[in-house]
């Protein structure tokens, strides 16, 4: 799954990470391909991409393309083993008031066994770094996420 230099530059300038999936027939689906808007490029926030509507059958690899030029890739045989999510905060300020939203991390993962153990890669928006860690989808320790909703992720464990 190569990324051409123009796309790589757009990702860098978007200041966010993007997922990219590969299927067993060689097809590649990028997060920006699923945006609701008319411009299907990795520009800006790119809202309204819906992971739950992305085909999971025959997905064999999931990649996290990061704004620092790095990429983290996970592989697995076919079988709905991949998940993807973002974790963030909605804060209500007690001083000077107002609400503020922020993103802490963008996580991709692959389930390794029936116990829910998983290998994850995450782009940390706090440290601007690509992380790799092991966790468990039934009680994600990362950022205290807890149990993932398997239906939303369409995971088959």
């Amino acid at each position, binding site marked *: 799954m190569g990324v051409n230099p123009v796309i790589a530059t757009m990702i860098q300038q978007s200041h966010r990470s993007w997922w990219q999936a590969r299927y067993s027939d060689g097809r590649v689906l990028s997060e920006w391909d699923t945006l609701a808007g008319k411009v299907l490029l990795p520009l800006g926030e790119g809202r*309204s991409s819906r992971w739950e509507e992305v085909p999971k059958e025959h997905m064999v690899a999931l990649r996290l393309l990061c704004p620092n030029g790095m990429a983290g890739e996970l592989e697995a045989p076919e079988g709905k083993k991949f998940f993807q999510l973002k*974790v963030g905060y909605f804060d209500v300020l007690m001083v000077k008031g107002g609400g503020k939203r922020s993103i802490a991390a963008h996580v991709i993962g692959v389930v390794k066994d029936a116990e829910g153990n998983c290998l994850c890669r995450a782009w940390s928006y706090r440290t601007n770094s690509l992380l790799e860690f092991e966790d468990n989808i039934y009680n994600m320790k990362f*950022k*205290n996420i807890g149990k993932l909703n398997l239906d939303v992720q369409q995971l088959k464990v």
Partner: protein
Amino acid sequence: MADFTTMRMEGNIVSTGAPSWSDLSGANHEIRWSDSAAQRNIASAVWPAMIRPAATAIVSYTYAFTADATGEGFYGNGGACPAFSKDNYLWGRWWWDNVGTFAAAPIYSAYLTTGHAAIVRHVGAGADGMLQGSPDTLNVSCFSYLKGNAWGRVTSAGAPGAGPANAPVVTDGTVGTVSPAAGANWLANFQSLMGDNDYITAPFTPAATVQDQWNIEFALFTGPNMTPALYQVVQTLKYTWT
């Protein structure tokens, strides 16, 4: 990203029978506390100081301000602010729109700032901060002075019809996370809201792309060991989306 377009924290400024939800998340909107029941529509520049008490006590009056000098008490109904009561069970709620999809259960907590840095829980003797706790809040551990409670289902599945079993006390708290039993349930006891140390995890993942709310109550305590400071505490809905 299938993030939400709008999220809010809302406070009820009228009554249980006819709730009126004030947005606490808009620009310059504020939650304020006082030991005076007569602070509706009082500008922040003349907001009265509260003398730190000799013994621990709840800060009885909570206000929802939408501009510097425009604000009502929680359950104030246009008049004097009533003292906090757990039985004012339509107290507050988290609100989200129908755009986003939660990937896991949302979490209710509080942080020192929007930086969400780890909070060092107070140990031993001596004074410490609002969320760090102090000997005032010591139970099995030093807990936050800010306590929260949460309902066991989204509002569309059924809003609260009564308050939690127990009123909050300054030593309330459980290290780590607690969840109300799924369904028409509050936590029996209030939880300490202390960043990633002590928090409340919803017992549900809300339905995808459905506008809904999550009912909550919160109460602030103070005491002789709370260090005087300009606290920039935030109440937070930590959440995941796809």
